[in-house]
């Protein structure tokens, strides 16, 4: 009986992709029109925050990603939570001692918006090593909601994945793998503050560029070859080729440094118990051979 229950708990019923939403270009155009409304207003490290440094954002982001991973959250929960975090930090000066609470609140909200079985306040508090209490999380939920003006349905890079995917001449059998890589790149971007002000569509297309390039799919179709691909991607989201190219290169740079960091951590942690470390490293290692991944960056 208990086993049965456990199995039930892992099953999330999901609707099939809706062709009315995915095959209608108006949806993509609407996403492109509204996406900038949900970007943080300022580069807040310069003009709002005093206590909080960029590396602290990375720390809290890494922790949030690990929690989302461990709890098997939907892919868009983490990028959405980071969007909330950045928008809040752009308007409210925050102490670093409250940053983890803020991260937990943002995951709480994003999970409630996107998941059929959302994260509970209790679980999130445990993940902070009980440094906060559920009651405090709920109180701050209201504060964060107020500062976000209750605008929670922000556009994330993940919203663009299927729209972009169906416009590229990709081999059918690789779609799952490509989607996974793109999602990983998007998550990676969300951990890095340099991408916080980029439009989500730019991050999505940049991630596609990096993923397709990394998976060396360019021998499949001429259209997937370097510049051809960038042109195609830029056309899909009506952006400048140069901006997109710059974005993709930046993503690849972040991947390199993240992999390097992951390797160092791995060496340090070799004696310690194995656990979730760096999502980019773990996932890429699982879904392709490690040599593939390293080839991207050489």
């Amino acid at each position, binding site marked *: 009986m208990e086993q049965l229950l456990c199995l039930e708990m892992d099953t999330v019923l999901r609707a099939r992709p809706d062709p009315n939403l995915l095959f209608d270009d108006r949806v993509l155009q609407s996403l492109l029109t509204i996406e900038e409304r949900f970007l943080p207003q300022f580069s807040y490290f310069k003009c709002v925050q005093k206590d909080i440094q960029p590396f602290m954002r990375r720390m809290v982001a890494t922790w949030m990603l690990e929690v989302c991973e461990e709890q098997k959250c939907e892919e868009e929960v983490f990028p959405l939570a980071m969007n909330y975090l950045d928008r809040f930090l752009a308007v409210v000066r925050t102490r670093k001692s409250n940053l983890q609470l803020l991260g937990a609140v943002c995951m709480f909200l994003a999970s409630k918006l996107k998941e059929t079985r959302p994260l509970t306040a209790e679980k999130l508090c445990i993940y*902070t090593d009980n440094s906060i209490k559920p009651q405090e999380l709920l109180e701050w939920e209201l504060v964060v909601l*107020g500062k976000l003006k209750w605008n929670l349905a922000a556009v994330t890079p993940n919203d663009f994945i299927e729209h972009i995917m169906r416009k590229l001449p990709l081999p059918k059998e690789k779609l799952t793998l490509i989607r996974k890589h793109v999602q990983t790149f998007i998550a990676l971007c969300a951990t890095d503050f340099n991408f916080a002000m980029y439009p989500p569509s730019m991050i999505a297309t940049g991630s596609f560029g990096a993923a397709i390039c990394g998976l060396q799919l360019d021998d499949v179709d001429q259209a997937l070859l370097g510049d051809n691909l960038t042109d195609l991607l830029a056309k899909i989201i009506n952006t400048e080729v140069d901006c997109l190219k710059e974005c993709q290169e930046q993503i690849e740079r972040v991947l390199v440094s993240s992999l390097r960091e992951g390797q160092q951590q791995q060496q340090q942690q070799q004696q310690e118990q194995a656990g979730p470390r760096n999502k980019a490293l773990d996932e890429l290692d699982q879904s392709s051979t490690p040599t593939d991944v390293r080839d991207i960056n050489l």
Partner: protein
Amino acid sequence: MCRTMSTINKRILTALGNGPTRRRLFGPVDREQLREECRNQLRKDLEDASHRWSFDFATETPMVGGDFQWEGVVGPRVPALYRSRLVGSADARRPGASASRAASGPTDKENVPCTPTRCQTQPQNLEMTPEKNHSQRLKRKQTNITDFYQAKRRVVATSRKSGQ
């Protein structure tokens, strides 16, 4: 069954405790300061909202000289959606078959604005603000300003939308 579920939940929660993901990132949290800051932020939000809507939400009274002018509306003319409902009444439990639903017209949707149009045509019926219901029973939802006041007109013609 219920017990099984809760023991499983408990086990999952304890299992979380041992992974490396469970960690405190930035040292101890000052609870008192946290609560203070929370209160301050909420108060600030309330002040901003009061300013924005020319309505003092703390005392639930209209303010003078803002973008809005508020006028009282008699109880029965408040759209059914905005009336306070009571916990435990048949009304709250089965809204589909309730008396207040019947009064709101034939529509099935509860978010359709259904202010009766005669509201505007009979200004002489606008009376004093109804007293707040201080009965012992619990209200199902929090009181809204629209329970008592109706935005009569906008003095300043801005195209600002709520939430911006």
